């Protein structure tokens, strides 16, 4: 079952002399429960692609379908609601809310959807994340690895259709990186979660089911690692 599909997705920045084609006619699709990693050198257009997939940015041309919905035909408000229900983000810089503790950071996306957080689910997540002991700590009281695990937990909280992770291990040492990758792999396996991850590291890319390579705005399939 295809959960994500892009059609001729293009993005250009600037005009005239300083025109940069970040993405050129990208078309691919992702099935439910797939773990896809995107690799490529800096400036190849990886982040642009991910932002477009998450509806954080608008393409110059082309379409993105998530769960058969055309992201860019939606109105801003609709898109916000769609995003919070269907897309989870994980960033390189964690981007946690510094004033909220661990538990609250996880519950925030649910609260934004005007729903009562399911404490059982949250506690289970905290267990998986290994953060049960620290649920009342603030983000700056956690290590980098713990912060990133928390960010993944937050992305998982709403049980989204897809999680988009932008270099989630970029700021971490190898042990913590491994933990984070394992956690993501497990969420895919355990919850049948779909996950797209950008990474620099070929080793971590190999944890994925499929690898996409981006170079000069062109996306090519490198085939599955498993």
């Amino acid at each position, binding site marked *: 079952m295809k959960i994500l599909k892009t059609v001729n997705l293009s993005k250009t920045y600037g005009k005239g002399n300083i025109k940069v084609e970040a993405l050129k006619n990208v078309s691919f699709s992702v099935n439910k429960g797939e773990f896809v990693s995107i690799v490529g050198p800096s400036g190849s257009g990886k*982040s642009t692609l991910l*932002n477009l997939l*998450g509806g*954080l*940015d608008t393409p110059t041309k082309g379409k993105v379908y998530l769960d058969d919905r055309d992201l860019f035909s939606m109105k*801003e*408000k609709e898109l*916000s*609601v769609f*995003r*919070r*229900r269907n*897309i*989870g*983000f994980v*960033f390189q*810089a964690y*981007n946690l*809310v*510094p*004033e*909220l503790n661990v538990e*609250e950071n996880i*519950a*925030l*996306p649910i*609260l*934004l*959807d005007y729903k009562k957080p399911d404490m059982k689910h949250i506690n289970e997540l905290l267990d998986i994340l290994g953060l049960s002991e620290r649920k009342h700590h603030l983000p*700056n009281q956690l290590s980098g690895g713990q912060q990133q695990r928390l960010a993944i937990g*937050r*992305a998982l909280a*709403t049980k989204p259709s897809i999680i988009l992770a932008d270099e989630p291990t970029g700021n971490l040492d190898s042990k913590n990186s491994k933990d984070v990758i394992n956690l993501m792999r497990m969420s895919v396996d355990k919850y049948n979660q779909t996950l797209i991850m950008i990474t620099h590291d070929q080793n971590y890319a190999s944890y994925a089911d499929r690898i996409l390579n981006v170079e000069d705005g062109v996306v090519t399939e490198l085939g599955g690692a498993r």
Partner: protein
Amino acid sequence: MNSYLSIVNRYLAAHKKKTRLTMISIAISVALVTGIFSMLDVFLQYEKMQVIKDIGNYHILVQNPSEKEMQSISSRIDVQNAGRWIDYGRGSINNIKCRLGALEEKIADNFDLKVLEGKYPTNKNEIMIEKWTAESLYLDKKVNDTIKITFNEDDTEREFVISGIYNDFAYMKAEGIPALLLSSDSNNEINKYKDLYMVEFKNRVNINKAVEDIKNQLNIEGDRVVLNERLLAVIGQSKNSSALWLYSTGAVLFFIVLLAGVVMIYNTFNISVMDRIRQFGLLRCIGASQSQIKKIVKRQGLIITLKAIPIGIFAGVIITFACSAILKFYNNNLFGNISVFNFSPIGIAAGILVGFLTVFIASSLPAKKAASVSPVNAVTGSNETKTKKTKKKGLLTKIFHADIAMGINNATIKKKTLILMSCSIAISIIMFLGFNVFIDFMHKALKTTKPYTPDISLISEEGLSNDLYKDLSDIEGVKNVYGRMFGYVDATFDAEKLTDNYKEMMEDIEVTDNGLFIPPEKSWIISYDTNQLKWAKTDLLEGELSEDKMNEKNGVIVVARQFRNNIATHTTNLQLGDSVYIKTPNGTKELTVMGILRTVPFSDSELNLTTFITTEKLFTELTNKSRFEAIDIQLNSRKDEKTVDVIKNKVDDSITYLDARQKNSDINQTFFTMALFVYGFVAVIALISILNIINTMNTSITNKTRYLGVMRAVGMTGKQLDKMVLAEAFTYSVVGCIAGCILGVLLQKFLIESLAETMTIFWKFPLTQVIFIVIITSAVTLLSVISPLKRIKAKAVSEVVNSL
């Protein structure tokens, strides 16, 4: 945590310092609005009492009323009180000039008239006298004594029995003319000089409409009804052009106060929201919709406002209490009954309204901006700073070092912040300059006692001896004694120096061969002592006022403005160094003009060519007179009755004793009541403006903590950091100062020139005010960056850089 909105509380709690600064800013603005509007409200209450005391509690008067008119007016439902005031004109008692009148008993209270002894006159032959006149120095009468009065109106002598003694009329006392009151309804055979019917309307009556109504109903011609303009002005019902000027000026200025409140709040709120753009972007990424972001920002505004408004209101009310307390302390007689704790519902309401409304506006606009931020930009940290396509010329770095250039650049690159910060400073300056117009107005509209105003004057046509002068100087409790001699001389000078105006008035002025003219009129000459010359300095146009030099070089001082029949004219164009020839008993004497005075505080009823002032020594040489016509006395304390009694003992029949103490203190109190509020307005505005600048700078720096940390991390020294921040702060101040001064001066010019034509206030460039503003703004800018910088520098670089 039950709702995503709890994030607001968490944020506020986690950023106490920033929250406090925002709160202070809103409190300051609310305090400004509440303070100014409460002060205005309370001021009008006090001013109303003051006006009622000064000119009486009546709204209109009807001249020469008929019985029918009086009856019909007094029975009107909107009339509170009405009564008759009859002026029987002048009279004399044993050659003492006096004024005669009658005031109906039921409105005696409206004119602050109280019977101290005896009773109100009711019968035809009864009369009431002022307390001061009962003394031996004047009429020397008691209750039930008889008194014979000659009425000037019909030149008849009548005999009266004194039925009562009432409190003093300050102005009559100062002029030494007793005012006597007859019965108001039983002296119909005496000629009336003026017959007036004084009407006090009830509260909240539309007086202009009521007046029209009365005129129409009773067929009264327009000019028979006279309005008490000052009282009407204070209660907001005057249509007089000065009052309308005041109203419109007030409206403009108070609108600016409201605007200032809005701008100040908007500015801080904007800073605080822009600071969190990144966080809002992050929330957007994890699914917050635009409207949720707006709600968060608005909630934040609401929470801060709810805390800040009471603080602001409290501060504003305290300012008002302080004004009331000062007034009560200073003038307990008049304001003793008003409570210090004078709450103004209008002021408080204005404060609350501005607080809420502004936070609503100030939070919805930045909220919109915050909501529309692209999540990508926010999260990746790429600012929305638009880099211009044109290549930077690097001009700033050529002129300044990198640190200063960066500071200026930081300030100018974000146009909106620059505009808001400068606006906030500029509007404070505009307010300050605008309210200064009221000071001009006050000095123009109200009389004040001058340094030379005497408390007691002794006047004698035969002259007062030098011994008396010495005696008076030696009395304990006397501050100053100064005498004046007056005389008339034949003075001539170069005929060219007479104004054309005067030549026309005099028609044929004969000019002799040597260019001098034959004086058609005498000139008035006055002697001044050292003190009086010193006091006259404020009116000095040119030259100098030195007793020694004048004695040495036969100097004389010319007074430029000459009063002829109470009209100010210029009769001469005498310049410094011109010669004046005065005919003395010992031949003609040549004097040199050594100074030119604008005016003198006395006027003469005679028509004179011009007025000269000279020293006592020269005056005696010129006129052979050496006795003072008038001796003025100033006391250390106006309430010192003992000293006054000693002075009174030295006065004999040939001397007129004038006691202006009560009049002086009345004048001072009237002035003080208004001055307190006018200066109060200006002081509050200045204070609030200073606090506002300090707070805004503080906020702007505190919000840059991280940026400044990064600068230190890349190698900026503490000094360079100071320079950079100061350069940025001064950019805001300078832009604000320039804009504020230009607009403020234009506002002043506009208020004075286009609206105050009838007020004879003239606009001139307010140089001292502008200099004051520049100095204060610079000092405040410097001061305001010191403490936040210190705080930032005290923290470790890593701590600052890593804080989100």
